[in-house]
């Protein structure tokens, strides 16, 4: 029920890029400021739009290594300079936000972009927003459960009455702006919690699986769980998507050479605060060969994406790009190759398979 533009028959594939706004470097090795990094994401989105990529998703983080804490503001900047690309959050941490404000901001983005906004709700894997906005992580379940319920009511764009424990009650509250389509496009991003998969089905939201480590095959039963749950609960099971990290260069060797130090920097910085051991080359190579790193030449990456999409029976693939302090030029090249070589090749591989 919530999405627009769902095809009635046949498979409609969608390919996107996602970023958290990591700080890139210049070719001379100078790290971008947060402000410059945000402007760079806008330029990347403009390129992606020009090259026909279907969506860009920007994540919400509240820490020094990522420039984007306010995704919809960045997306609004992108909106006024692009024509077709879908503008998504990846993800919106609803639990530490206010559903009414989230609706207002995305409805505004939807207006600026002529209906291209998409909210992807989720937990994300970072927790900085909780203490920052005065929430206790241990209340996560009730925060998410209550807020997603209110948010789903707001999506009907009619006056809402709501009672709960996580924000003030609402009595016939009408919220603006209204969207032109009558409903915001909303999906749920899930990292593998079965309960979250069932919740997405319960509200009839499309599902995007965040698969950031290990073989994607592990998630095939989760797609099945989503579809079964929707059937049992009498809601609509929408097409499912996936989101995984990647980097594309002209050759496999070049892609690994660029990715390795940057992925390691990004991983170890996060790992340090979580007690993970340092990222090893063995892990990196394993993830490329058998796991969830889509790093390589266009042909290598296209084959890997097509395989994963087939195994999981998903129709949307979003590649997280630009991890760590990569050169800005390498990020643009990765996007260019993704749009011009990888996506057409994945479509070809998937269509061959449909025949």
């Amino acid at each position: 029920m919530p999405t627009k533009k769902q095809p009635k028959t046949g498979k409609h594939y969608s390919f996107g890029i996602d970023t958290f706004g990591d700080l890139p470097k210049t070719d001379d090795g100078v790290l971008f400021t947060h402000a410059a990094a945000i402007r760079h994401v806008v330029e990347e989105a403009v390129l992606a739009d020009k090259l026909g990529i279907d969506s860009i998703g920007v994540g919400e983080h509240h820490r020094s290594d990522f420039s984007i804490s306010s995704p919809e503001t960045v997306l609004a900047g992108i909106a006024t300079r692009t024509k077709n690309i879908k503008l998504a959050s990846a993800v919106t941490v609803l639990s530490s936000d206010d559903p009414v404000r989230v609706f207002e901001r995305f409805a505004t983005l939807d207006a600026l972009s002529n209906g291209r906004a998409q909210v992807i709700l989720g937990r994300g894997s970072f927790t900085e927003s909780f203490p920052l906005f005065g929430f206790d992580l241990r209340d996560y379940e009730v925060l998410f459960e209550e807020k997603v319920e209110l948010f789903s009511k707001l999506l009907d764009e009619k006056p809402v009455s709501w009672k709960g424990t996580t924000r003030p009650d609402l009595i016939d509250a009408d919220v603006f702006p209204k969207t032109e389509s009558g409903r915001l496009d909303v999906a749920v991003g899930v990292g593998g919690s079965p309960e979250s998969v069932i919740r997405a089905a319960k509200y009839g939201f499309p599902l995007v699986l965040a698969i950031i480590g290990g073989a994607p095959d592990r998630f095939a039963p989760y797609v099945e769980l989503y579809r079964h749950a929707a059937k049992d609960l009498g809601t609509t099971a929408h097409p499912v998507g996936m989101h995984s990290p990647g980097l594309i260069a002209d050759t496999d060797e070049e892609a690994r050479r660029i990715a390795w130090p940057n992925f390691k920097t990004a991983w170890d910085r996060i790992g340090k605060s979580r007690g993970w051991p340092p990222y090893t080359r063995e892990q990196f190579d394993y993830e490329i060969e058998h796991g969830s790193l889509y790093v390589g030449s266009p042909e290598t990456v296209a084959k890997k994406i097509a395989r994963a999409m087939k195994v999981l029976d998903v129709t949307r693939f979003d590649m997280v790009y630009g991890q760590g302090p990569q050169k800005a030029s390498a990020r643009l090249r990765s996007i260019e190759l993704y749009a011009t070589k990888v996506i057409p090749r994945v479509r070809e591989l998937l269509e061959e398979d449909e025949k």
Partner: protein
Amino acid sequence: MKSNAVKTIGILGAGKVGVVLAQLALKAGYTVYLSSSGPADRIALTTKILTPGAHAVSNSEAARLGDIIILAIPLSKYKTLPVKALEGKLVIDAMNYWDEVDGPRADTVPDTMSSSELIQSFLSSSRVVKALSHMGYHELHDTPKQKGDEQRKAIAIAGTNKSDRMAVASFIDSLGFDPLDIGELKVGKKLEPGQPGFGANLHLTSLKKLLNL
């Protein structure tokens, strides 16, 4: 492949870790009882689709029915464990303090204790062994191998009684990993987040070296 005396496994917690451990135990031929904090029917569908063959039950039933019980709930919720039903049981503590879900560590685990010692003191009549906590759940899922396979990875085990550690070792072997007995429960501290063993997805010899054994 499964060990002789142990036929049924009770897994408390049907989240990411609990589901993967249930899948491994089913594959190794055990009867699996899976539970979450709520009533059994809340995880009926999850169990049917993700762990076909496992039985969705209540926490106390899983605790009562398993020859070995695995704890896979968020650590900060440990006070919800069915203490009575776990009396006398061999319990594998696969939990870690994890700031994404547990909030500040000091709110749950005193600085002077390892998290498994805390669980042992709470479950004072159970036999707690720390294991299956240091390897990431997707690696647990992806890497089991037959005995003798040179790719086989190792899982460290810490616990008070030698015989309990041996029983857990044989269970871990049956899941597709080389067991590594590292001794007393308190030594399990080495496997906690921020410590050398955490995240280790290594062969037996490398894990021994990492843990200075």
